């Protein structure tokens, strides 16, 4: 994944954070997902202005995790969101 790309929520997604967990609904398929705390934090950082690298740096700063591990986890999670049409990359 290109770390300079900027992820943004897909226009067909509805999301709301409830008690620290993001509920992400893919309206196309009516699929409802609840994200874990780190996933929720990544979701909150996906705003169309931050790059993948920016998000990785936020996660490194906020959680006890190495750069390499954060990069791997964030990219893997973003790829899952991409495959589900929950985000787009620009």
């Amino acid at each position: 994944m290109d770390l300079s790309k900027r992820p943004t929520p897909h226009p067909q997604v509805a999301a709301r954070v409830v008690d620290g967990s993001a509920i992400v609904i893919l309206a196309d398929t009516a699929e409802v997902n609840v994200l874990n705390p780190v996933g929720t934090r990544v979701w909150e950082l996906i705003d169309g202005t931050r790059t993948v690298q920016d998000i990785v740096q936020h996660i490194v700063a906020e959680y006890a995790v190495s750069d390499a591990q954060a990069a791997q986890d964030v990219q893997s999670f973003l790829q899952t969101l991409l495959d589900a049409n929950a985000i787009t990359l620009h």
Partner: protein
Amino acid sequence: MLENRITLSIADWSLNLSLDECDAPARSRLLDRYAAFCVPYQPDAPTVRVRVESGADFIPIAGAAVWQIRTARRDQRIEFESHFERGWFDRAAGQGDLTLRPKGVIENYLRVLYAWFALEHNSLLLHACGILRDGRGYVFFGPSGSGKTTTALLSAAHTILSDDLVIIKRIGQEFHVCGVPFRGDLPEAPRTNASAKLGGLFALAKETRHYLTPLALPDAVAQLARCVPFVMGQPEHARRVTDICFDLAQRVPVRTLHFRRDDGFWSVIDDHQLARGA
């Protein structure tokens, strides 16, 4: 002589059905099916013109793996199409139109319409079994196979609203559960036109014994939203559903009911209600 129109009232939301273009057997079937929900004609209620017409399937039934219902909402207009039915409803005009093939039934169109009516009133049509017991409404929800019909069968001593769909209606600061004439796997069960203040919401989980576990708020909201049919196709509507589920889960306790195939789960619910002081 059969009326050429009937008026339904479901959750106190009325709808006139104009049946001029339906033959007597079709009108008779409608009256039989929805008798408990028929009320005197309401001139101010929206009206749907229903007709039966021969012709090709709207969606070919041959080769269809599952029963298909296509629905969409564009502004005030709701579109509906299934194998033997096609129709629309214009909310602003208060008018709709439904064409049935001879094998068609009106029920799925009504389900879609009332799902939208509910959403417009900060309420929900929910895939759930609804039971009235001692003046309170209990709702057991979950996907197909989770045990909604089983729960209804095990609650025959009480008033069964539905084994498949109920309306959760917001009235002031409260939520009430309302019966609907739509039925799941219990076609012969009575269709009860009744409602009560909601006493509890239970996500169903088949188990070998009866017990309740708490459901975290995000999981409660998500599990409820997964049981809301027809109205989630656009993000703004999905967001509204989420907001209503959030409001509902904050006002009414949501638990997972682990249950086996006997009516002992009511004792567990009674103990829980007693502990809450409800």
